């Protein structure tokens, strides 16, 4: 096909361009991802029966703050990465800052605890499966987010994949952490939540180039 013919054909396609920006579209996708994750958790593991009671604990809001912070940082990163030529800016540093703050808080609290209890504070009773459950709850969220990002044109596929994984992981961790997990220590959250979310981001980075190509 001659280039000029191609141009004529393309110009004739006058359907106005989709006008929904990545922020609005991805916001919708995140809402859908959240609903999916909650539905999956409720069907698979069940919501903790003492939810109302747990909401009075500080640890509940600590988990909400941490996962929410990571989700916001990942959201900003992905909306930027979805557009060719846009700068990533500080989004990555926001996420790193969040992890650092959580790790420091976990470390300080752990040091303040009596030595005999430290190990239990750190490992809790669910460290063997907590990261895996976070990954499981995040999986459908990841699918929705990738589908939403594909509508745009990410040029750094690996980084965008990692960002999508981080976003899905943070959403999954929030849902699992708030509605199911009854661990309460900062050290546990800083270690095992972070691990689960980081694996999600790594999986995203591995799959990104394949899933996001255009």
């Amino acid at each position, binding site marked *: *096909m001659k*280039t*000029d013919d*191609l*141009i*004529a054909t*393309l*110009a*004739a*396609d*006058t*359907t*106005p*361009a*989709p*006008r*929904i*920006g*990545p922020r609005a579209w991805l916001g919708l996708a995140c809402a859908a991802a959240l609903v999916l994750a909650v539905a999956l958790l409720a069907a698979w593991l069940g919501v903790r029966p003492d939810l109302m009671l747990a909401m009075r604990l500080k640890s509940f809001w600590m988990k909400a703050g941490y996962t929410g912070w990571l989700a916001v940082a990942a959201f900003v990163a992905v909306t930027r990465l*979805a*557009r*060719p*030529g*846009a700068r990533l800016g500080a989004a990555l540093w926001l996420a790193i800052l969040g992890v650092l703050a959580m790790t420091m808080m976990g470390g300080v609290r752990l040091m303040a605890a009596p030595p005999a209890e430290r190990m239990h504070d750190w490992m809790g009773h669910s460290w063997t499966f907590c990261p895996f459950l976070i990954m499981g709850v995040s999986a459908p969220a990841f699918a929705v987010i990738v589908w939403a990002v594909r*509508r*745009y*044109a990410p*040029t750094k596929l690996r980084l965008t994949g990692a960002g999508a994984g981080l976003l899905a992981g943070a959403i999954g961790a929030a849902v699992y952490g708030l509605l199911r997990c009854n661990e309460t220590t900062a050290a546990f959250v800083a270690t095992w939540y972070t691990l689960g979310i980081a694996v999600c981001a790594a999986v995203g980075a591995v799959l990104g180039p394949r899933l996001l*190509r*255009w």
Partner: protein
Amino acid sequence: MLRGLGGDAAAHGELLSAMSRYLRGYFARRIGSGAADLEDLVQDTLLAIHLKRGSYDPSQPFTPWAYAVARYKLIDHFRRGGVRKTVPLEDAGELLAAETVEEGAVRRDLNKLLDTLPPRQRQVMVDVKLAGHSIEEAGQRAGMSISAVKVTIHRGLKALGKRVRDED
């Protein structure tokens, strides 16, 4: 671009044909102007610009967006081809060396000048000053002590300087 986004066919066609000229230049500089894939790449990118026009943020300048798309398509092209632009190893030196005509001329003059030195002196000079070996390495290669290498280089430079002055 803005009018094209709104569905103005004439404006969109104008933009695309202007872009096709820029893109042809952009790709030609990177894969060679005679490359068989050049036109494919241009068309690919035009298609991408059209299909992905929704990812352009109207509040941002258009050119960086368009070139980011072109760059992505170029990388994709290399990846898909599986072959990078390669040069046989034997020719690599030439590729790096003769960057410009002047540089080639300088190199030839330098070689001529170096040829006037005794072989051992010449070898040490080339190793240290041109090939970038350390004095220790050059000493090992030539079987000389470090201080001997230093003296040799010093004398060599002096001899070269003298010769250049004589020629002038």
